[in-house]
């Protein structure tokens, strides 16, 4: 973070998006936008969180460091952002406590933007979670973190193709050294304000037999709640016997969707 605090001419230049950043720490009573920070364990989510909010959530190099969720805030370009650091998970399809916290927040908390942090060096494995998140929300930004470390291992990510494949903006960062944070802020801002439209990737190659069953359930859900962006995912969860989702449908928690 110390990288960001140096006052060089670049930092105060109007062209530098980061010059428009004001870290708020935990002062986040009213906010214009809510940002969720999701990702696999040990991808540097907490470091991204710290560099945006100016908070000093303890980070450590072992999976599962963030238990529960942390909140912070910042002002960018006049808009007030509240940011929720979700626990790191490998998937959203099991019933462990941290997966439920992450899943429920993205589903019911309806964040304006979800930042999905992935490790550039382990992109394939990390994409599993990213693809699941994209079934739930269509306003997301992929943050390919730890690019410097990946580079050391001679790995590079074609972010343009990745963005095209996933249908969401992709930003390469190294949060630890402050690389790409300015870009991330600007992209999140643009997605939140609707300046960038996302057309997220939806899971393909589902066996025909299953896909038809899913479609049937999905149509029923859409009949009940016409404006739901994630009816397919809810159909997935219903077929998986997810009790939380069944309960939410019974309570009508999906009705007030935007």
């Amino acid at each position, binding site marked *: 973070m110390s990288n960001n605090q140096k006052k060089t001419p670049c930092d105060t230049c109007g062209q530098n998006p980061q010059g428009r950043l004001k870290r708020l720490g935990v002062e986040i009573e009213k906010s214009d936008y809510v940002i969720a920070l999701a990702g696999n364990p040990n991808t540097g989510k907490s470091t991204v969180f710290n560099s945006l909010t100016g908070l000093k959530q303890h980070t450590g*190099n*072992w999976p599962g460091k963030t238990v529960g969720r942390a909140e912070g805030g910042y002002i960018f370009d006049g808009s007030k952002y509240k940011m929720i650091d979700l626990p790191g998970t490998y998937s959203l399809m099991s019933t462990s406590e941290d997966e439920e916290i992450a899943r429920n927040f993205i589903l019911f908390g309806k964040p304006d933007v979800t930042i999905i942090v992935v490790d550039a060096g382990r992109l394939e494995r990390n994409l599993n979670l990213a693809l699941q998140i994209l079934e739930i929300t269509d306003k997301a930004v992929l943050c390919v973190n730890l690019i410097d470390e990946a580079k050391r291992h001679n790995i590079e990510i074609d*972010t343009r193709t*990745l963005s095209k*494949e996933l249908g969401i903006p992709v930003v390469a960062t190294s949060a630890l050294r402050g690389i790409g944070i300015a870009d991330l802020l600007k992209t999140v801002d643009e997605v939140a304000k609707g300046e960038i439209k996302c057309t997220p990737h939806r899971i393909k190659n*589902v*066996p025909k037999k299953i896909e038809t069953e899913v479609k049937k359930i999905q149509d029923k859900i859409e009949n009940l709640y016409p404006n739901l962006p994630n009816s397919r995912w809810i159909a997935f969860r219903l077929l998986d016997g997810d009790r939380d989702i069944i309960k939410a449908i019974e309570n009508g928690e999906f009705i007030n969707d935007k």
Partner: protein
Amino acid sequence: MNKEDQINQLISEAAETRWEIGQEFHDKLSESIYSNAAEIAEKTVLKDHEKENFNLDRAIDRIVTSPIWGFPIMFLVLAIVLWLTIVGSNVPSEFLASILLDNVYVFLKAQADLVMPWWLSGFLIDGVFLCLAWVISVMLPPMAIFFPMFTILEDLGYLPRIAFNLDKLFRKSGAHGKQALTMSMGFGCNAAGVVATRIIDSPRERLIAIITNNFSLCNGRWPTQILLSSIFIGAIVPDEYKTLIATAAVIGVALLGIGLTFLVSLFLSKTFLKGEVSTFTLELPPYRKPRILQTIYTSLIDRTLIVLWRACVFAAPAGAVIWLVCNIDIGDQSIAIWMIEGMDQFGWLVGLNGVILLAYILAIPANEIVMPTILMLTVMTTSIAGYGEGNGVMFELDSMSNTHDVLVAGGWTFLTAINVMIFSLIHNPCSTTIYTIYKETASTKWTAIASILPVIMGFLACFLITQIANIL
């Protein structure tokens, strides 16, 4: 058809379909997601295979998680950290003590006696200030050395390797492999370790992890171990081996704690908390070069100062209470003497004494203040020191050897030191941890078990050690 019926129909239809496609659904969907991810990664990850020759991380992992070298390396790392702490904290400890006790205390006491009644100067200077001074001089140097080193290990990525090495033992004990991580957190702070057990999904295994976390020596107890080991155990060998033996003793206690973690886990999983061991995947993260200076800075600010502050917050009122129980008389002697005498017989039976037991009661809020409390109670209730009482010989508690002299004057022997080290490992968690356990388990019963079980075990252990020592 109204909405409610539609909803019920939807749910029952989903349930029916679920029976038809069954388990296959979850697996097939996972497969689709994996194949999608692989496809995208194929297109976007550019790997330079030419340069990809030697993977340092994997090479290191092969050594530090190897069946042969894994454990010796773990012990070696622990030994180096402790040895550096013991060697390094000696000088600053003496320095702080000579400033705070020899100079500031004497000065403050002289000034206070001029302007305050004796009871107020006693309460403030002999009670509150003296306890604070002891906490700072005894606790600060080891913490300031131990924490940054521990944090560097954590940032480096060594903790998951420890978890990997210990996983098998934990599973054999009927506990969750991730307990290795929460146990490691406990070496920092038990309350933090208890909170960290949230990473364990199964309630049964989580309870085991919560109850046994107390056997990880926390940062409130490391200094007690290091201090006693330096002045009693190091003293029985020639000077050149002193720190080595002292380090070995502290490691021994820490390992005993780990051993007890396994034993108690096994006991619980065979009796009250029977059940299957759940499997999990543990990712070994890449090693990351820790940013040494920043780590030292943040671990000093985040951990050392916070822990020290906590110790001071508890030490100040504890100092006041100590002074009060030592100076308020019931009948012909002070409350402290009554309590100490009341517990003395039981204390000696288990190889401790009344002062130590009273100190452990007064120090329930924070383990950090056990040693300072013992020292204060000893000087105030025996006639050896000039502190507080104003008579007797003036002791200069500015070096370890003088701490040794005070404790010996209080009736300590080598055996007492061993017993206190053992009891410091095996006794009730501090009040913060107890409260955290209650919050995490929401159960009075488990909180009570987690609090009382270790005390009973501790007394038993000390009793056995003492009786065996007496026979020998």
